[in-house]
């Protein structure tokens, strides 16, 4: 929401002219940026205090923020299981990207087909509904049985995890299109193909791209779970290794890297969303 305009009714938007505010105690305390700073400082000092005073009873439960930074900095030059942290990031990223792209290539067209053709829908929907109920993480055991311990089972789980939201949203998106748009195409003399080309596909883009964002975050959850269960590389391996050698600094550092990478990915998905459906740019919170 734009901060320098205020909605005073449903139609009229007036700019609010803000003069210079006098510097008061309440004004400083009420400022959100100041509060953000206070909150972060409080959070990190509480963390440091909890780690330094061994609040969980033993030293291997929590590391101070400084230890984490130090450990993380060390990982950029030294190696863990033969890879630096960049190598582990790349290992996880490669799996996510392969599984995600495969799932999107299979899921989105299939979802659109199901929405556009009732016969295909009648055949595939019931089987899809059966598979949809099983959480992707429940497939890990089967995936390991089927594909061994290399990259294949991880890609398979990521595929399943992102296939379901990709297909679901593509399928539902077509239903949400306003029927008037089809009427317009028909009045202009368009045939069924024109309807699909001009209305169905562009009209379903917002929901599809929302589905892709869900699919991407699901893919990250899946790759982490798969790597926690069995792996020799990747970010999930980093944190499970930290757990095995009782090194909380490594675990928390790994979590930070995971958060940063996941954040970058969701940010780039939002960027993609803006590219795919530029008309939706200003709708907030959907």
């Amino acid at each position, binding site marked *: *929401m734009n901060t320098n305009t*205020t909605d*005073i009714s*449903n139609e009229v938007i007036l700019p609010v002219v803000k003069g210079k505010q006098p510097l008061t105690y309440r004004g400083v*305390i*009420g*400022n*959100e*940026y*100041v*509060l*953000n700073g*206070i*909150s*972060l400082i409080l*959070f990190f000092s509480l963390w440091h205090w909890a780690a330094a005073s061994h609040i*969980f009873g033993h030293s*291997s*439960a*929590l590391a101070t923020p400084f230890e984490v930074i130090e450990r993380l900095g060390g990982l950029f030059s030294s190696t863990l299981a033969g890879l630096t942290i960049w190598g582990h990031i790349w290992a996880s990223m490669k799996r996510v990207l392969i599984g995600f792209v495969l799932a999107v290539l299979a899921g989105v067209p299939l979802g659109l087909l199901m929405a556009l053709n*009732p*016969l295909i829908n*009648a*055949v*595939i*929907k*019931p*089987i899809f509904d*059966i598979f949809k*109920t*099983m*959480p992707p*993480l*429940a497939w*890990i*055991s*089967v995936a390991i*049985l*089927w594909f061994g311990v290399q990259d294949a089972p991880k890609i398979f789980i990521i595929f399943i995890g992102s296939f379901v939201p990709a297909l679901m949203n593509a399928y539902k998106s077509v239903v949400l299109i306003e029927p008037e748009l089809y009427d317009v195409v028909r009045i202009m003399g368009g045939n069924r193909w024109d309807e699909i080309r001009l209305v169905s596909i562009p009209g379903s883009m917002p929901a599809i791209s929302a589905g892709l964002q869900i699919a991407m*975050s699901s893919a*990250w*959850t899946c790759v*982490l*779970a798969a790597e*926690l*269960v069995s792996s020799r590389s990747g970010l*999930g391996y980093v*944190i*499970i290794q*930290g*757990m095995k050698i009782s090194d*909380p600094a490594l*675990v928390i550092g790994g*979590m930070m890297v*995971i*958060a*940063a990478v*996941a954040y970058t990915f*969701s940010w780039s998905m939002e960027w993609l969303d803006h590219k795919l459906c530029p008309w939706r740019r200003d709708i907030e*919170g959907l």
Partner: protein
Amino acid sequence: MAYEVVKTRKPLILIILPIVSVLVFLLAWEISVAPRGVEDWRIPSTLLTKPSDVLRLAIDKMSNPNPDGATLMVHLWVSMQEAFLGYLLALLVGLPLGLLMGWFSTIRGLARPIFELIRPIPPIAWIPLTIFWFGIGLGGKVFIIWISGIVPCVINAYTGVRMSNPVLIQMSRTYGASDWQIFTTICVPSALPMVFGALQIALAYCWVTLVGAELLASNQGLGYLITMGRNLGRTDIVILGMISVGVAGAMIGMIIDRVESKLLAGIRR
């Protein structure tokens, strides 16, 4: 009446096809899996199990605790307990926090940066740290489920408050309502549909995360059943576990749907 309700009949083929499709799928599954110890063109029993065998095992597991130490119902009960405890705690903390964050800028300023720091971390990534803190008992799993459930609660409650109509807020300001009065009488009710959306999303998240938490560290529960099946090389147990998780999840989802449509009969947007 301007509109007339027209009943359209589904074509017969659209009614039959779904049933045929499921039957063909089950039949193909049944045929393409070899029985135990037989090796031919079919998929060996170490990789997949016939649906009929899974059904037989399911009936057997109702009373037989071997080979993984508990009956199916005990596993289900343990899983449900963990999921619902985490879910309820997530609702209790997440919804008020999200609502307050939406309206009071002080709370938003204090809580937002920490929330934004924690949000991008997938709940699964908390597992190692949780094991350090709580061990592999109930507490750790509830904590992970709590983390996965709280994120959609906060986001939805927050968005719900932010989406309340500014005209209403300004009108009540004009009539002299206090901040707290506006919050309770305008913001909270207008956030309700989003809050109910959060109930459903959070439950789905909790159920998914539960399996992940149990895959790693557990001694009972459906996720544990799946892991044990793999460790024992019993594909039928793995498949049974997967199906149980799916069926239980679907049933919970259906109940929530029912409750939601009853409660929200009037205000669903």
